[in-house]
């Protein structure tokens, strides 16, 4: 029996506002526990929330980028439940009137994935449970009240690969909008997946499970793959899939049951009487729409068209807004897109590491890389020396000319100087010369290598070859 897979993702992104959603506390990650708190985010008696306008704006930005309708009338609701990470015993969220609804995101295949809704809510604190014999839990409320958006997709994803692509595209868009850091490792981007199987072609959806603890793209992919296998085996054996929440276990590489979903919790949602409804002026929404940046897919297409980049390069370089901007700045200084792309993908990527490249500041001036590419094209240095210079530029921030001068990297293009070295090498390796004259073309390559070695790689490669073949040819006669 064949099954169709139906996947929907619920993605939570922490918004990169300077302050929390209802108070003036900082949203910075990693502070000493409970130092970034106040009566409001601690939910002390009598304290009241005041909605951060920037958080609303960020949510609207996400909505517009994902082609949603933006609600002109929206409100905040209370979701009531007891848990020590939620100091008011309710989370302020949005229930029936989210800020954004009915959008979509297009995969590379052209398939449209519906975005059912995007709503604004507050994050909870963080619990740490003791692992020793003494049993206790610690609560850190620094994260309590950090603004979140929850982006709920339709059940439109059919494979783990599509789910990963969707999440990656979403990550890029949020990052381009500069509304979230999107660091899965720090929890600023979190993802839950709903997955069910149904007999191929059947309309009606099967019983779904919800997967949690998906802390990386790899975890998402593996957990979905595992779950497809698990559910299809159950169904094939005529057994039912239990509606439940399952946790991805990174060590066991399995999903494990957390709790059943048969008993749905009643959150007793109701409009938060402390917060007036959110009424948006269409002019305000239009203003935000106009301010949206070029989005990743548009940028990628443009890079392919305007810079002639191969798709692979364009995709990688537009994978992070900073990187794309860096690339454009390099080319504004000196136009050689493919060379720029090679240096960015090869050298910069290696030096920074892929993750860093996506998120951290690039510690060098793009104009300097432009200058370097120009020096290479003008024959001042070779590509291989260029890579060494680049490494120094990356470490010190110095201009390429300075490094070349200081390190004596300048290419040897002086014919008489180079000719002396060529003749020295020919003399030193009579066997190779004989081999070459005897018809072994490869032997010339060895001699080129030796000359490069003598010149510490700084010989002008074209001139070197010209001189070598000329001298060898002389010996033929």
């Amino acid at each position, binding site marked *: 029996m064949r099954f169709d897979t139906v996947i929907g993702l619920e993605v939570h992104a922490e918004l990169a506002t300077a302050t929390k959603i209802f108070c003036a506390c900082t949203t910075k990650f990693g502070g000493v526990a409970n130092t970034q708190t106040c009566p409001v985010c601690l939910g002390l008696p009598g304290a*009241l929330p005041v909605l951060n306008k920037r958080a609303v704006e960020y949510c609207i930005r996400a909505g517009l980028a994902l082609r949603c309708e933006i609600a002109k009338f929206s409100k905040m609701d209370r979701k009531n439940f*007891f848990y*020590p990470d939620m100091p*008011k015993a309710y989370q302020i969220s949005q229930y029936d009137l989210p800020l954004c609804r009915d959008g979509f995101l297009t995969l590379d295949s052209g398939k449209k994935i519906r975005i059912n809704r995007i709503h604004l809510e507050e994050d909870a604190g963080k619990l740490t449970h003791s692992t020793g014999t003494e049993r206790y839990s610690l609560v850190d409320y620094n994260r309590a009240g950090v603004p979140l958006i929850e982006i709920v997709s339709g059940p439109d994803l059919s494979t783990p690969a599509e789910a990963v692509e969707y999440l990656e595209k979403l990550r890029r868009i949020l990052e381009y909008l500069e509304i979230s850091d999107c660091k899965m490792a720090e929890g600023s981007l979190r993802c839950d997946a709903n997955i069910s199987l149904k007999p191929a072609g059947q309309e009606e959806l099967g019983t779904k499970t919800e997967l949690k603890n998906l802390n990386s793209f790899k975890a998402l992919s593996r957990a979905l793959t595992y779950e497809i296998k698990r559910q299809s085996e159950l169904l094939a054996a005529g057994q039912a899939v239990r509606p439940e929440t399952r946790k991805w276990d990174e060590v066991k590489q399995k999903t494990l049951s957390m709790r059943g979903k048969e008993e749905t919790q009643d959150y*007793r949602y109701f409009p938060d009487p402390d917060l007036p409804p959110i009424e948006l002026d269409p002019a305000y929404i239009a203003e935000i729409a106009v301010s949206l940046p070029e989005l990743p897919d548009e940028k990628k297409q443009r890079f392919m068209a305007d810079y002639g980049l191969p798709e692979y390069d364009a995709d990688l370089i537009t994978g992070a807004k900073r990187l794309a901007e860096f690339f454009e700045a390099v080319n504004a200084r000196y136009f050689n897109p493919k060379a720029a792309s090679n240096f960015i993908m090869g050298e910069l990527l290696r030096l920074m590491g892929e993750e860093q490249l996506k998120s951290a500041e690039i510690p060098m001036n793009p104009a300097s890389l432009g200058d370097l590419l120009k020096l290479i094209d003008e024959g001042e240095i070779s590509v291989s020396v260029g890579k060494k210079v680049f490494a120094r530029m990356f470490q010190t921030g110095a201009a390429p000319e300075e490094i070349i001068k200081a390190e004596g990297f300048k290419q040897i293009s002086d014919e008489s100087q180079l000719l002396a070295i060529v003749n020295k090498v020919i003399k030193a390796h009579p066997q190779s010369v004989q081999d070459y004259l005897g018809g072994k073309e490869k032997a010339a390559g060895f001699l080129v290598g030796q000359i490069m070695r003598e010149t510490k790689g700084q010989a002008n490669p074209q001139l070197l070859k010209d001189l070598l073949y000329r001298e060898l040819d002389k010996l033929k006669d």
Partner: protein
Amino acid sequence: MELCDLTIHELRRLYARKEVFPSEVLASVIRRIHAVEKDYGAYLTLDLEGAVEQAQAADVRIKAGKPLGVLEGIPVAIKGNLCQAGRETTCASRILQGFVPPYTATAVRKILAQGAVILGHANMDEFAMGSSTEYSAVKKSKNPWDPLRTPGGSSGGSAVAVAVGEAIAALGSDTGGSIRQPAAFCGVTGLKPTYGLVSRYGLIALASSLDQIGPLTKDAEDSALLLNILSGFDPMDSTSVSGKKVDYTRDLQQDLSGKRIGLPLEYFEAGIDAEVKCTVLEAVELLKELGAEVVEISLKFTDYALPAYCIISSGEASSNLARYDGIRYGKAAARIEDNLNAFYIRTRSEGFGPEVKRRIMLGTYLLSAGAYEAYYKKAQQVRSLIIQEFNEAFQQVDVIITPTTPTIAFKFGEKSQDPLQMYWSEVCTAPVNMAGLPAISIPCGFSRGLPVGMQIIGAHFTETVILNVAYQYQRVTDYHQARPEPVRQEGTV
């Protein structure tokens, strides 16, 4: 008459002329507290040492001829649900025992900034749920006109303190009548401002969409003086309203000719004590003599207002009070159990009194799936109709007058065994909160030796109008100056 029996405006005049100094007034208040507090129980906590220091500082400023705050050297009581930094604030509940807020409510901050001398937290029904102070987990306050009777509630302690001179004025909070009803029972003046006029920041919430802080005073002029300070936009409260600053004493002196008073039939019908009704109607006659025009009006949704109020206030309260779990502050269950839920249950079972539990259970049910649609949403719709109906009425009239309470002060135990009877105490006042309107209760006579309150309701943000009517009434009557027996005795000593 002692200094502690004077009003804010009288003391301000004496201070301005340097005839009397705050320390003397405070000494008088403290003498009165020592004399009667044990019998009437107005306070949850007293901070007399702090008050003495504040009063002495005010003396120095007055003597030095420095610019004075509006409340410079005026001893004031604040209700037990108003947070004051460094002072235990418990809402008269066991569950908040030991809770010392690190911040001060905006309303309290404002009166402190104007030089008020804060005496302490006044007694109240636990979490402001009740109409008699019988639900205080700490003590019952007693009605100074008859110690066998309740002073009303939930701001009962505040009303008693003002009535017997244990404070010159007090702050209370009003969700369904909690300022006006005890003001009526104790013979003082109590104002509930328009929803949003006074910041709720630091007021420990009962029902967020209904709660409003207001003054309890000896007359309407003091009420206006306090409102001048309390009112105004607060960026810490999203429901507070921004608008031009109004001087609420502005129209006090206006005569009443041409003022149109609406008498809603439904507020004078069954369930309203006959003598209370007559007393209020007599007061209305007097206003007529002062030039006001009286028209009968009808507010047809009145019958639905109290039930809808109970639904909305309980629903909101159940959520507002969910945070009291004993984990971060307040009183936790004696032994921490292995099971988190068991700990919550034990803490809340031990920490809350019966009325609070009743409303939490009721509210939790009312917000649950199914019940929400059937009751809570309906109650919100009723609320919209009530607002609409009041707004329409105010197209015809300037103020609406009703009895503040259906009866005079009731005896201890008379209603505390029957929650519905207790809720009925707010039948005339709760609709006003539902509509977010301003209303003032002023003493308008006596029935069987106990004060009767008249409620003057205004359109949104027309506090100047209701204060004008109240002031003009008090100009020609002396019910607000009548003092209960303990004060008369003490005054002659």
